[in-house]
């Protein structure tokens, strides 16, 4: 089966620095792929190129066979790519359900309408999406007063509004408590199963990465240094050295308390 996303020789320079250096990978339908690596390894740069925030210096990004490298974010979204942000981005002056309705209004190209009341448009669809992420009971709350974990779930509902084929999630569980992290990724994995979406995500919490990803890629100094299954990555000595660390400090403590 042909891949959903196919990245070839993707590079980006900032002056003399190669932030992303010749990265290539494929993402299959229904796959949950993690991108990890130390701070400054080029994860964000790589992600921003996939989402259209940055133009690549060279290389191609193909979505279902069409090159999207260098396209504007809003065009990429219209081609069926949803995204969530590392630091949540929601509309603080709207209610929860209105945030989702906004995405639906955009999806149905009703942005320039002056005659309809916006809060009545696509309300049922929006509530159904909120229900998927378990937020239906908070639909009428003011977005600015939500807890952080709820904002993350709201963002996920928003990202699903245009029926995406691919979800890009930048540190989806950053700033959440351990139990919430696992729950959110479980939710993501469930949605992926139901809808046949593919997901590419970056993450620092190794519990989340090891528990849910189908495959892991490791980026260091702009280059892909490893690409494999959870076990392969966990036991890769190079990855341990540059990223995972010995884990000695924590292991010793845990053994002591066990």
């Amino acid at each position, binding site marked *: 089966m042909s891949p959903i996303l196919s990245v070839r020789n993707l590079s980006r320079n900032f002056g003399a620095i190669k932030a992303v250096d010749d990265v290539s990978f494929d993402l299959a339908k229904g796959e949950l792929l993690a991108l990890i*690596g*130390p*701070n*400054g390894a080029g994860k964000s740069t790589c992600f921003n190129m996939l989402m259209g925030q940055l133009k690549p210096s060279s290389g191609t990004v193909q979505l279902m066979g069409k090159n999207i490298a260098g396209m504007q974010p809003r065009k990429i979204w219209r081609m069926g790519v949803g995204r969530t942000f590392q630091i949540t981005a929601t509309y603080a002056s709207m209610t929860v359900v209105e945030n989702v309705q906004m995405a639906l209004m955009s999806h149905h190209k009703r942005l320039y309408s002056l005659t309809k009341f916006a809060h009545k448009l696509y309300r049922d669809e929006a509530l159904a999406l909120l229900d998927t992420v378990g937020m239906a009971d908070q639909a009428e709350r003011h977005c600015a*007063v939500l*807890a*952080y*974990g709820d904002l993350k779930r709201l963002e996920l509902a928003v990202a699903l509004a245009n029926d995406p084929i691919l979800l890009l999630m930048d*540190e989806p569980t*950053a*700033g*959440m*408590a*351990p*139990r*919430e992290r696992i729950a959110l990724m479980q939710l993501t994995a469930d949605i992926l199963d139901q809808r046949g979406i593919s997901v590419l995500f970056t993450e*620092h919490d*190794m519990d989340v990465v090891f528990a849910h990803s189908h495959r892991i890629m490791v980026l260091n100094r702009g280059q892909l240094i490893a690409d494999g299954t959870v076990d392969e990555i966990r036991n890769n000595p190079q990855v341990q050295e*540059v*990223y*995972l*660390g*010995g*884990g*000695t*400090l*924590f292991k010793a*403590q*845990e053994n002591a*308390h066990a």
Partner: protein
Amino acid sequence: MLEVNGVNSFYGKAQVLNDLNFDVASGTVVALLGRNGAGKTTTMKSIMQLVRPRKGKIIYQGQDITGWPSHKVARNGLGYVPEERRIFTQLTVLENLEVGRQPPRDGCTTWTEDMVFDLFPNLAERRHNRGKALSGGEQQMLTIARTLMGNPAFILLDEPSEGIAPVIVEQMARVILQLKDEGLTVLLSEQNLHFAQAVADAVVIIEHGTQKFAGSLASLQSQPEIRDQYLSV
């Protein structure tokens, strides 16, 4: 050294903290645990008077500091390292340290740039770089270094392990233990129980702004039901 007495804090009409009561003994590391939105950051800000508690008192070294302006709190030896790494991105590493510099304080280590660079060797190489050129881990180090330049006796660390690579997290843990050896008292907020276990002497657990547990690390270990209920590892 620090007493939090019946503190209630609000954002607008929403009550965020509800009757917090705990002490931090001199020379110890205390971890404030709880999930996101539990009120950890608000607790930190209430101690610094960046958020004014509506009820209750913050007593620091026997002095009631409630209602003081933040800069006065800081000048009394309380150093604050905020969550989202609020370094000055337009300033160089050295200039960032300069902003944090305060006159020497009795009974506290007087930090110099060189001492700070010994603690964080990565920063030494980048002393003339602007803050925005640093990686996330380096920025986290710089926030701590900047606060140390104020020669604090007590340091508040808001989520030091958040969003940084596991190798750097280990380095952070070593730094905190080193600071403790220097005689500093530390209150840190954490979601990562492993990290807290590695560095803390005592633990305070809050949920929905209410205190659920306060005691030594050992006593928390002996009450696994509390651990499971509020922390979920």
